[in-house]
């Protein structure tokens, strides 16, 4: 069945009777939700949503896998990723060093599009599944090579318990604990 255009009449409502019944219906549905709000709000610092595995959160570098191809820096739409040259031990002669280039990232600009992760030929870059970290100054947001290899501290996880929002037919979203309670 191909798509088609369908002209529809606008539902008309009028008259005193419809006016009274519509007012009552609106009031009733308000009272219905007042009595049973079916809410799924997250009490934020005490609860936080645990995101799915494929979520595109902060990007972390696995230095061992990096082959210095610079594809990530070239695909980055906001020029947040840059290559720096650092000395690393020579693969065959340990006392010598060679210059090798690695990516560093500027989270002032990163837009979390994940192109760098997808273009990396060796899967040296990966996402962590959290995103809610804030900064009080701009300089912290430029990650040098050491910071880029560590997953960032996640203060929310220390304060709260993880919950998961499930899609539910009755409630829309339903808040369930992400993990079993310990002990």
């Amino acid at each position, binding site marked *: 069945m191909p798509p088609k255009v369908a002209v529809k009449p606008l539902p008309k409502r009028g008259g005193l009777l419809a006016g009274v019944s519509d007012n009552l219906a609106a009031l009733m549905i*308000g009272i219905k939700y007042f009595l049973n*709000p*079916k*809410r799924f709000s997250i009490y934020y610092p005490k609860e936080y949503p645990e995101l799915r595995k494929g979520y595109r959160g902060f990007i972390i570098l696995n230095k061992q896998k990096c082959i210095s191809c610079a594809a990530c820096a070239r695909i980055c739409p906001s020029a947040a990723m840059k290559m720096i040259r650092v000395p690393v031990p020579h693969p065959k002669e340990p006392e010598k060093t060679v210059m090798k280039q690695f990516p560093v990232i500027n989270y002032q600009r990163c837009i979390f599009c994940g192109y760098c992760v997808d273009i990396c030929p060796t899967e040296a870059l990966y996402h962590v599944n959290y995103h809610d970290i804030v900064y009080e100054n701009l300089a912290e947001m430029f990650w040098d090579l050491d910071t880029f290899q560590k997953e960032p501290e996640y203060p929310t996880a220390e304060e709260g318990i993880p919950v998961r929002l499930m899609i539910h037919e009755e409630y829309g979203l339903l808040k369930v604990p992400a993990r079993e309670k310990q002990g």
Partner: protein
Amino acid sequence: MSVLDTVASLIFYPPIWQLLILGFGGALVVAMVAVWFERKAAARVQRRIGPYWASPRLGGLMHLMADMLRYAFQQVVIPRTVDFWPFIAAPIFGMALSILPFAVTPLTSNPNFWPLPPALMEYSLLVALAITTLPPIFIIVSGWAANNPFTIIGGVREAFIILSYELIAILSLFAPAVAVGSLNIVDIVQAQGLVKWFIVLNPLAFLAAILAVAMSTSAFPFEIPESEPEVVAGPFTEYSGILYALNMGGAYMRRFVFGLLISLMFLGGWYPIVPGEGFILGYALPSLVVVVKAVVVVLAISFLRAIYGRYRLDQALDMAWRLVLPLTLAGILLALVEAYLGIF
């Protein structure tokens, strides 16, 4: 009589006493609870939490205290373009006049605790209604004094709204007086007794009164003078800090005053408690019942925020003149019939 006695008698003179306790203390608490309920009930209907983290055990009631304190300590910006004295004076006078009706409303039938001398009590309804018509004038003044397109449009809208609701409010609150044949609030409450409440005997006037209160205190769906999408915050756009808090509080005080009047005129006042002798039985308990009924009315009006949007100005005026005014007149007619039948 010593000076101390004079001071004591002044302080314990019932109108001032009631004004201080109910006006500055009680009404402030009621306004806080009303705003809290408005936000919390709307949040429940809207499937979210509402104010919470300032005091999780009280359900976020302290957030309102925080708001009030924050306004109190915030900078008061007075733009160079405003008319200085009216700009400052309007919210203060508006607030003062909003709580003045507490000084004339009796909350018990025990004459020892009436705020006015018994001779004046004959006209207590008239006096209370007369005072309630004053505060909106200061809203208009504040709108004009702020000298900003939005405040001026807001002030004009307020004026339109006043014209339409004033008549309805007064007529619908007079309906019980017509039925009973007295302008004394105490008489009207006594006439209602335990069961013959006017909400049952005259639902038309009650509905009209509720609508009039919603209009006069710009509750939804009649929140037209402060309609955000066109006129930002209406007459209060330029106000900041404590002056804005006074303006905001004034509206809720007025709602509470009207709530008191409705609870007395339609909801049987202090019944089922029959006031007796002494402070507890004669004043505290009956007034508590009246206040609780008034709070229920206020909260019910606040709840409408979650259900309705706002009317357009001309639609609201149209509704007031074409629908609610006939309703009020029908209510008066009903009251006349009841008076003729001699129910009271």
